[in-house]
């Protein structure tokens, strides 16, 4: 029963293993903790459990970023140690979460993408196979400034992934053979793909990114068997394009998607669908954010700029819109999409209700009724001590006018995606507390170039620019919060072991007690963590934690080697704020896998 080989560090065997030197970056406190806790270990770690299901299909629920795995818990997490690392050799990480499939771990590298399948059982972290689709390098210049989540998705015997340069690829899970590869977004128009596809009933649902390039936002469903587009709807334009028909509630004036814009501005008005698309199999609905309108300067786009900066619910089979929550009509500030929308079924004010939890980039948490689109609660989960006033009407950016101390800064109040614990209704939010100065400039739409019309300088609100906040969705209050020196740009993972995992820009993967927020463990990586920590059960039945370290997204961009920090507007104004982090020791994306000894 116990003969299944365990994952161990093999010293100096494989070229992909450079584990030993990273042990040196372990925080001394952790090492001390290891020594002190070694006696407690014997009592708590009972070894692999025979009853543990082998490789459950879903280790982390993509709808909530929570995991039901509990082998690693608050008592033994301080023994967590690196099992192996794998260097992708690509600049940054682009938010890829590794995916367990059978006895292999699948990792999608940053652009130009390679899908690596890393053997776990006997091969112990060596490369099993890899697959690289052809890449259009134009997309390299277009991946500012949305957070990217381009991980692989496994359904049945296939693996699907989106590429930054606008392709969706299906690969046979056992081999490195592509099944189909379709181009859905055109980098020549400034379009890219920023998120992994969402697997709905028989479809794959994808949305584009490219607000900053004036790309018109859209969401589309692809046939999983062939890659054929089944439906496609836009975020701006006439009702027919947007998918607004008799089912849309509440009914309003026709064609708001084009009438709330001057002239034909809706044709390059942004509203991308760059975040994670949530799917509710019971209601057969998908939920997605629409990005901010383009350009950033609100002057040249009078009107409500429908249907940008809001949340859509669409029928998963037809794509027809059911409801829309417009959170920022005529958005004054270019806040990105918020965190992924999280599904929560819980009692709300005495009655069970299907809730959609939407942590918005404006610093508020919206609780929305999934069926009707009614906003049930909107609370601020973040405060800005130095700046008393938040974004307000007096702070309207106009052409050639500078507004100061707008909080939050343009990447929004969230650095990454939040995690939701379904059982407690508690949300864990990775927070950025930066502010910005913004000056409107006249902007010209030129296809394939940045369509912004703003000079922006991001400012630090105080010495703590980030936080992780635990928020009780039901009682509508913060439970605890951890101050971080830098914006927290990674996604959060919560596990049934009572742990919350997140990463920091200065390269620490941290585990804290989900109950109290007490820090329990951390590990120093060679690059910033801006992606998604994940956890899985290996082929040996033991739980592992994995993360791909590497700079990506807006904060990652500010850490790249080519940025000159003497320019306050470099990296969209983030360069100076992030300057104190330092440049990554190793700019390559690197997979770290941790396990209990």
């Amino acid at each position, binding site marked *: 029963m116990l003969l299944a080989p365990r994952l161990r560090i093999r010293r100096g065997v494989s070229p992909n293993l450079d584990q030993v030197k990273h042990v040196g970056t372990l*925080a001394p406190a952790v090492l001390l903790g290891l020594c002190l806790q070694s006696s407690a270990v014997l009592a708590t770690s009972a070894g692999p459990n025979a009853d543990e299901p082998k490789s459950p299909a879903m280790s982390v629920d993509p709808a909530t970023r929570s995991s039901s795995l509990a082998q690693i818990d608050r008592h033994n997490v301080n023994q967590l140690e690196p099992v192996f690392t794998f260097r992708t050799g690509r600049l940054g990480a682009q938010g890829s979460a590794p995916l367990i499939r059978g006895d292999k771990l699948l990792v999608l590298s940053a652009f130009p993408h390679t899908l690596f399948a890393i053997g776990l059982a006997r091969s112990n972290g060596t490369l099993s196979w890899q697959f690289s689709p052809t890449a259009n390098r134009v997309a390299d210049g277009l991946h500012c400034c949305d957070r990217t989540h381009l991980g692989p998705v496994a359904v049945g015997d296939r693996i699907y992934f989106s590429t930054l340069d606008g392709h969706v690829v299906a690969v046979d899970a056992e081999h490195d053979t592509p099944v189909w590869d379709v181009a859905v977004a055109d980098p020549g128009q400034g379009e890219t793909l920023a998120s992994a596809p969402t697997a709905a009933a028989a479809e794959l649902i994808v949305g584009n990114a490219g607000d*900053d390039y004036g790309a018109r936002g859209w969401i589309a469903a692809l046939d999983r068997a062939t890659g054929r587009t089944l439906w496609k709807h836009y975020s701006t334009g006439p009702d027919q394009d947007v998918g607004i028909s008799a089912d849309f509630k509440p009914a309003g004036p026709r064609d708001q998607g084009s009438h709330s814009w001057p002239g034909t501005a809706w044709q390059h008005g942004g509203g991308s669908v760059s975040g994670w698309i949530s799917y509710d199999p019971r209601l057969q609905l998908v939920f997605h954010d629409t990005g901010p309108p383009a350009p950033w300067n609100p002057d040249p786009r009078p009107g409500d700029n429908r249907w940008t900066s809001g949340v859509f619910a669409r029928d998963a089979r037809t794509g027809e819109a059911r409801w829309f929550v417009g959170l920022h009509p005529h958005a004054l500030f270019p806040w990105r999409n918020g965190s992924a929308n999280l599904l929560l079924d819980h009692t709300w004010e005495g009655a069970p209700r299907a809730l959609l939890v939407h942590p918005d980039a404006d610093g508020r948490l919206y609780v929305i009724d999934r069926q009707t689109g009614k906003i049930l609660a909107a609370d601020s989960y973040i405060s800005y001590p130095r700046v008393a006033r938040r974004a307000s009407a007096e702070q309207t950016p106009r052409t*050639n006018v500078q507004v100061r101390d707008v909080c939050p800064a343009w990447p929004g109040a969230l650095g990454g995606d939040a995690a939701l614990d379904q059982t407690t209704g508690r949300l864990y939010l990775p927070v950025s507390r930066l502010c910005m100065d913004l000056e409107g400039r006249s902007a010209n739409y030129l296809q394939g170039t940045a369509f912004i019309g703003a000079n922006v300088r991001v400012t630090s609100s105080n010495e703590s620019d980030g936080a992780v906040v635990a928020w009780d969705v039901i009682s509508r209050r913060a439970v605890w919060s951890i101050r971080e020196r830098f914006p927290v740009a990674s996604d959060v993972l919560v596990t049934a072991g009572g742990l919350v995992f997140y990463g920091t820009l200065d390269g620490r993967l941290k585990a804290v007690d989900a109950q109290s927020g007490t820090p329990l463990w951390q590990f120093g990586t060679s690059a910033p963590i801006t992606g998604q920590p994940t956890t899985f059960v290996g082929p040996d039945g033991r739980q592992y934690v994995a993360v791909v370290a590497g700079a990506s997204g807006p904060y990652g961009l500010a850490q790249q080697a*080519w*940025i*000159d920090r003497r320019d*306050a507007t470099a*990296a969209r104004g983030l360069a100076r704020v992030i300057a*104190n982090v330092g440049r990554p020791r190793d700019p390559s994306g690197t997979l770290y896998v941790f396990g209990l000894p």
Partner: protein
Amino acid sequence: MMRGVGTLVLSLFLVEGCARESRNFRLDPPIAASLDAVAPMPNRIGGAAPETDTVLGQPYLTNAYNLNQGKQLYTWFNCQGCHADGGGATGPAFLSGWWRYGPQAVSVFISIRDGRPEGMPAFGNRLTTEQIWQLTGYVRTIGAYSAQTAAPSRNDAMQSRPSENRAPATVATPSDEWPTAPSR
């Protein structure tokens, strides 16, 4: 008498002072064509500048009017979106004086006219040859290694960095250490 001579000399100076730099608002087509005929190396990095540019006295590097035009074009054609005010974003920085395709005017000209594979769009069908040269000249002043005799005017907008002519290129800033000790 002496006063009369003095007045005459002075007024001659004044008259001379009124003579303004002559400005061609449209390049003669043959000159424009020859300025477009750059001879890059086969890898499209560096190469010989057109002789016309030398004969004209490098007007796109030494003439403040051309640099100013370049600065306007820099904003109008959304250069800021990717390169910020020279500090870089998705596009590389100019301020650092480190050029991906070399510092020569020909490389910069070709980058703007034909684009580069890693995301730089081609502007050859959006700008005239003269405008591309004006932009080339301006972009090169952002990351100049030594002070130039001509400079564009100051920013009307947010002052985000040292002025073009006051920022000789230097290597990286000092605070680049990756932290080894845990923060807090």
